[in-house]
């Protein structure tokens, strides 16, 4: 048999068929190799991680907490809003995770329940300073008068140093061991009916969004260039920043008898100081009066018995110091901020923790 020579256009299959078959099978296997993964996908071993419930994007919910991976644009406030339905709980997320800023990709745990009521830890416990102002002035400074500039600096200091100003109700919820509050919480109060509470304090507090409580004694509510009248008091009360509460009717010292007053007379007068003033404030402002600042900071057992009976939730002295959750509700300490304080003096009145007590 003579074999014709191979040309470019011809291929002698008679001799290369087995080879050709092998080549086809090889190609077939290679092609099948491309399609291989999809045949096995469904039988890949399960990972050992929990897969149910299914992740909601970058959050995974459990009964007691949510695990979150922070995304670009997330802030503590936005996470608090999304997962705790309250943007003002931003501090809770930051403090629990022990971080001060958020970066994309950060792993976070957001608990659903408070874990440090009363701020009690094995080292110590939280204390809340309540600071007290009386009069403010654009120019004058004395023991009871703080200048506008100093007040503004002090409010700025609170912001810069990470203090959080809380409301009176939040403070008392903390005292009742019902609520966890930011670690560096502060309460602001202002006493007496000075017009400067409206002219100077109110705008600055509004700028910073700081709630404060103004204690008024009702006999001195009258509009003048020095004192507050009902119009501006109502304006402040409705402004959402200023909480108006009671400082008695006449500002008499509740532990001193007056002019050989009999015990019965004293009893009746004290009752009047505490009831009539509250009624007047409630009538004008349509608000609950449940806190009292004692005139001159003084109190006694009888006055406290009255306050409890009349439904006051707590009362304030002017005894310097910061308040743990177990402080007597009717002997709350307050630190007076004097006109001659610099920021260092101011800071000394802002103790938020006692870590020596449990050592």
């Amino acid at each position, binding site marked *: 048999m003579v074999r014709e020579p191979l040309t470019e256009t011809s291929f002698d299959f008679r001799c290369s068929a087995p080879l050709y078959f092998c080549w086809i099978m090889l190609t077939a296997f290679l092609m099948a190799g491309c399609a291989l993964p999809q045949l096995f996908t469904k039988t890949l071993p399960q990972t050992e991680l929990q897969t149910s419930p299914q992740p909601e994007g970058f959050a995974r919910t*459990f009964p007691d907490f949510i695990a979150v991976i922070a995304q670009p644009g997330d802030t503590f406030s936005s996470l608090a809003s999304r997962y705790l339905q309250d943007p003002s709980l931003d501090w809770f997320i930051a403090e629990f995770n022990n971080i001060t800023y958020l970066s994309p990709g950060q*792993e976070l745990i957001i608990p659903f329940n408070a874990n440090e009521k009363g701020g009690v830890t094995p080292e110590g416990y939280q204390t809340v300073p309540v600071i007290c102002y009386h009069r403010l002035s654009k120019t004058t400074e004395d023991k009871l008068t703080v200048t506008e500039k100093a007040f503004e600096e002090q409010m700025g200091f609170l912001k810069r140093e990470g203090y959080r100003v809380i409301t009176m109700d939040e403070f008392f919820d903390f005292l009742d061991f019902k609520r966890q509050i930011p670690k560096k919480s502060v309460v602001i109060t202002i006493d007496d009916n000075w017009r400067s509470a409206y002219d100077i304090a109110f705008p600055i507090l509004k700028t910073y969004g700081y709630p404060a409580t103004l204690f008024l004694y009702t006999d001195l509510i009258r509009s003048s260039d020095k004192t507050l009248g009902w119009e501006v008091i109502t304006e402040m009360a409705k402004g959402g920043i200023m909480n108006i509460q009671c400082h008695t009717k006449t500002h008499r010292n509740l532990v001193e008898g007056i002019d050989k007053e009999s015990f019965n007379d004293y009893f009746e007068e004290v009752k009047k100081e505490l009831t009539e003033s509250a009624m007047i404030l409630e009538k004008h402002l349509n608000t609950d009066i449940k806190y009292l600042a004692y005139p001159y900071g003084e109190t006694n057992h009888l006055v406290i018995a009255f306050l409890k009976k009349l439904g006051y939730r707590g009362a304030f002295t002017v005894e310097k110091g910061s308040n743990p959750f177990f402080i*007597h509700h009717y002997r709350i300490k307050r630190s007076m901020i004097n006109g001659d304080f610099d920021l260092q003096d101011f800071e000394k009145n802002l103790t938020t923790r006692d870590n020596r007590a449990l050592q």
Partner: protein
Amino acid sequence: MHGFLRYSTSLLLTLILVGCAAPPLIRKEPDPFQVFPQKYRMLATEWERKGEFRKALFSWRVVISFIPNDMEASERIKALQEQMRNEADRHFSVGLDHFQKHSIQSARKEFLIALAYNPDHEQALKYLKYQLTEPDYISYQANEGDTLRRIAEEAYHDPEKEFLIAYFNDLDIRNTLKSGKMLKLPMLEALSTSRPPQSEEMLSKARALFKAREYQKLSTSRPPPCEERLSKARKLFKAREYQKALAIVKRILECAPSNREAIDLRNASYYELGTVYLGQKDCLKSLKMFKNVDITFRDVSERMGYLKKQIKDLAEIHYKKGVTYFLAENLEKSAEEWEKTLQFDPEHTKAKRDLEKTLHLLDKLRKIQ
């Protein structure tokens, strides 16, 4: 051959098409949450090492939430829960012991630690909030025959203050008081109408120094701070010098009538003195001391109840002795015994009557002699 070629080519083309049409390779993305278990495992271990057991417990719970079968997490959670429960209870017991010994600061510390271990420890919280602070009321349970007037007499030494009890207990003075009713009696301090005497004394001293230009001495003429004096009083108390401790405490309370520590120390000092006299079987002195103690302090009301009964019994014993001496015609001895009776019970009507008769008789006898 052609068939073979056709078949091979078709197979090849099919495989090629299938290969090309295969979906792109699915690469499984790493789970972004896979770091959580390891991270929180490490945190849990770290918190345990630092003694922050609540934080450790929560961290282990995070681990077990992600890996339900994690043996280590399960065991650590169990162990921590038990340890925390035991520690909380232990510290609470120690705190209670301190409370009963009237070491308020130490009691507070233990109750706080109990709460640090277990924030749901209701008893620890109750003591911290209500038992360690100054009581504003005395609790009193009305007995059969009690009236508001009588209670006011006993509590305030002033029956006219019955209106006070009525007001704070929502009662009508005119109505009968039910036996067993719990009443709140507000504690009363004396009303101040001027500066406390000590301050006035210090002030006039200071004025005199100022006039004499002894300005240096002015700074030392201020009374020592309360805390210093209190510390001194505590030391005297510990050394069992209760009278001296009381002297200091009384001065502190003149300036600061609501100083809780001073009030506590006063109560404790009088209590100890009462106990000392009780040990010496001097019931009268013992009762006198206990009467200065707040009625809610420790077991003072039980002790007073016991002492009153003892005193009553002693009064009867001396009365009967008096009768025996009288019948034996020893008038002087009988008078002596009846005087003792009246020391124990000033209202003992028989002793009063018999003593009067006896003294009258003795008087007559002396005149005859």
